[in-house]
């Protein structure tokens, strides 16, 4: 397939990867190299956070304390969340954005390459600082990832370290978001109008705005914790006229948009994968864009549904109940659009599609439990139980993480130039899909039967489902080891991938050769190429 990009690639041979580790990686400015570093970093964080989850599930395998002091158990739950959210899911999305956004909008690179380098290289230092808290006196933060005072300020030396690490992660996210917004606004090839951008770019654009709006709020909240602890302020202490609940309001004003930051790019990936393997354009493209924007907006007015038990006035509870229920509408529109995309399609079941289908079913289950949690009177029974744990793991694991895996299996041949081992990837899928349910579904039952979350030991009536859940956890954790093996094999070699890779793939990235040239689109794609690549 002859096209302009190939010619450009030849012209720019001397602009290939720099030699040497430091010049290629430490001083990286290429969007693909930085994207790779983000993804590798996220992978390492997933396995560290996953190892912590295994420790948690091992302790919870049967009643009685077998391995951990309760304080260390609390550290594990806290660090597991911080590593998975800020180290795993968020960097993985930035990595995918780095790889795909320039290729999808017809740009040679991200708009701000040095900023890109900086935003990545902050992260390893932030997480080194965070993980080193495991070795300071008093141990790592153990007050939950939500850092509620006064409990969080009881922490020892780990508190300022964790807060500084969070500041660094926040700066990294904001810089990354600025880069995404500037790239999407200024680097689109002529002819790629806003409404011709693929949904992955759209969902990332909205995610980037959410990030810029809320990361400073988190920074403010944790800075107030810091001054409360070290400089005698009393923002969150009633003894000085403050209010511990104020922290929760500020935190969740960040925290609720944050959960959409974790899931919106997932909607983007699924909206690309399902049409490809259904061989049919996405149903209702524009309504998908509007639904994403509505979810983004609603995410700012529902925050107090995380804290219905703090004792809010009736009117406040009503407001947050109704706005929360409203989220079901745009989310429903999305699920219906994906289903309509498959309807009357011609569906095949390659690994990315399998993960996207699992996303559809299991994310919807997470949505149902979310709807149940919105009912305030019932929420009084669910709040802070394993029902909530089941809910957010359903939306985060088969939601966000399955979509990250789907995205990687979808685009990996384009990146490496090779097809991967389909059989291995399908094993990875089936083991993940089965064990994720063994792991998390019983947690609904545990919560409804009355088991609180964040406890290292439990009454014997909860033994059975906890044992099942732990078995699911070990199975799920072990199955994930197949993923790096599949990726490593694919990077090293394999059947040469075609440019289109997948029969039904549409979009500018598939108009580039496989592997994609180092500087994606040296000259912008012609209108003809854009029209051929356009999915709608």
């Amino acid at each position, binding site marked *: 397939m002859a096209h302009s990009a190939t010619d450009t690639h030849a012209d720019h041979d001397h602009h290939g990867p720099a030699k040497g580790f430091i010049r290629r990686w430490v001083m990286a400015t290429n969007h693909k190299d930085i994207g790779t570093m983000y993804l590798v970093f996220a992978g390492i964080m997933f396995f560290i956070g996953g190892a912590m989850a295994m420790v948690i599930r091992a302790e919870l395998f049967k*009643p*009685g*304390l077998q391995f951990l002091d*309760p304080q260390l158990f*609390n550290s594990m739950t806290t660090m597991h969340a911080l590593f998975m959210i800020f180290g795993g899911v968020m960097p993985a999305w930035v990595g995918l954005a780095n790889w795909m956004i320039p290729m999808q909008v017809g740009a040679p690179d991200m708009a701000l390459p040095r900023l890109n380098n900086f935003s990545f290289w902050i992260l390893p230092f932030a997480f080194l600082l965070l993980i080193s808290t495991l070795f300071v006196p008093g141990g790592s933060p*153990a007050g939950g990832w939500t850092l509620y005072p*006064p*409990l969080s300020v009881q922490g020892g030396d780990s508190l300022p370290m964790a807060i500084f690490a969070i500041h660094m992660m926040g700066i990294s996210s904001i810089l990354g978001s600025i880069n995404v917004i500037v790239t999407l606004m200024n680097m689109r090839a002529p002819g790629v109008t806003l409404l011709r951008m693929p949904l992955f770019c759209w969902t990332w654009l909205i995610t980037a705005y959410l990030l810029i709006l809320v990361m400073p709020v988190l920074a403010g909240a944790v800075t107030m914790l810091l001054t409360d602890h070290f400089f005698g302020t009393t923002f969150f202490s*009633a*003894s000085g006229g403050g*209010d*511990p*609940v104020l922290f929760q309001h500020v935190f969740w004003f960040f925290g609720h948009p944050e959960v959409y930051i974790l899931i919106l790019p997932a909607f983007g990936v699924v909206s690309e994968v399902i049409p490809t393997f*259904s*061989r*049919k354009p*996405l*149903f*209702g493209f524009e309504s998908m864009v509007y639904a994403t924007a509505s979810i983004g907006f609603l995410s700012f007015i529902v925050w107090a549904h995380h804290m219905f*038990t703090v*004792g809010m006035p*009736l009117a406040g*509870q009503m407001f947050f*109940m109704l706005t929360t*229920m409203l989220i*079901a*509408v745009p989310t*429903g*529109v999305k*699920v*219906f659009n994906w*289903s*309509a995309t*498959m*309807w*009357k399609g*011609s*569906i095949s079941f390659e690994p990315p599609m399998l993960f996207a289908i699992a996303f559809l*079913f299991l994310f919807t289950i997470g949505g*149902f439990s979310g*709807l*149940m949690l919105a*009912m305030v*009177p*019932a929420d*009084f*029974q669910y*709040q*802070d*139980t394993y029902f909530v744990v089941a809910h957010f793991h359903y939306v985060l694991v088969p939601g966000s993480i399955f979509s990250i895996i789907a995205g990687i299996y979808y685009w990996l041949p384009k990146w490496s130039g090779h097809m991967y081992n389909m059989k291995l990837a399908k094993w990875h899928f089936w083991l993940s899909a089965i064990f994720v349910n063994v792991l998390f579904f019983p947690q609904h*039952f545990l919560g*409804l*039967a*009355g088991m*609180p979350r*964040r*406890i290292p*030991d439990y*009454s*014997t009536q909860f033994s059975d489902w906890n044992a099942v859940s732990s078995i699911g956890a070990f199975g799920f954790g072990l199955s994930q080891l197949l993923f790096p093996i599949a990726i490593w094999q694919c990077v090293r070699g394999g059947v040469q991938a075609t440019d289109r890779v997948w029969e039904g793939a549409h979009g500018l990235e598939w108009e580039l050769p496989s592997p994609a040239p180092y500087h994606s689109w040296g000259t912008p794609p012609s209108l003809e190429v854009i029209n051929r690549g356009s999915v709608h």
Partner: protein
Amino acid sequence: MLRKSGLTGALLAAMTVFAAPAHAEWALNMTKGVTELSGEIYSLHMTIFWWCVAIGIFVFGWMILSLVKYRKSQGAVPDTTMVHSTKAEIIWTVLPVLILIVMAVPAARTLIKLEDASNTELTIRVTAYQWKWQYEYMDSGVTFFSSLSRESDAARQLDSGIDPASVPHYLLSVDNPLVVPVGKKVRLLLTSQDVIHAWWVPALAIKKDAIPGFINEMWFQILPDKAGIYRGQCAELCGRDHGFMPIVVDARSPADFAAWIAQHKTPTSN
């Protein structure tokens, strides 16, 4: 005919399973509880659950049908013109809104009742500490601490060698339970001396945070025929021993309750 009865049987079995008490092992669902409102909350929970099941049958059914019917391996040819339908989009926006309204009405109604703490007959101040509860009967002055029972405390130590199954109500028993009368509207005033805790007894279907420096209010009224022991736990992460500060409510007849108060009143209090 046989198939139909099989289906009914399966449905009945499913319903029995959902009605199973929480203290049974392999428990799947919450219980109806022992107050009028806990019963209402249970039905609210079940109503939403069945709505979700109904929507799930429709949505998953649609997806499964597509996955079966439109497989490429079965020679399915894609209809690439099917990209938009204003009619369908209006339907699947409006219909969920209507379902949400139907669900919001009973939820709002129950919520209003829950928040009505007027005309209570007994007030107990609950103060949370790391990691125990203090109860103070405001009218009679009876006051005491309630912490994890000794047997559970010994068994829960790291590598204690004691089998938790051998301890009655492991981690859910206390030295001094909260004694309350059935049939009376009891008000709890919650506060904390250190960090945020949450007081939760599933059978009473109430949960609220105990916040240092602030007082929260909640109430319950146990049905007159529901005297008994009800167990719960702290529900808000409160530090190292968060998992080890249970709550036990001992609900007695008003006469037995009055006798208990008389017995525990110190001579100095009136």
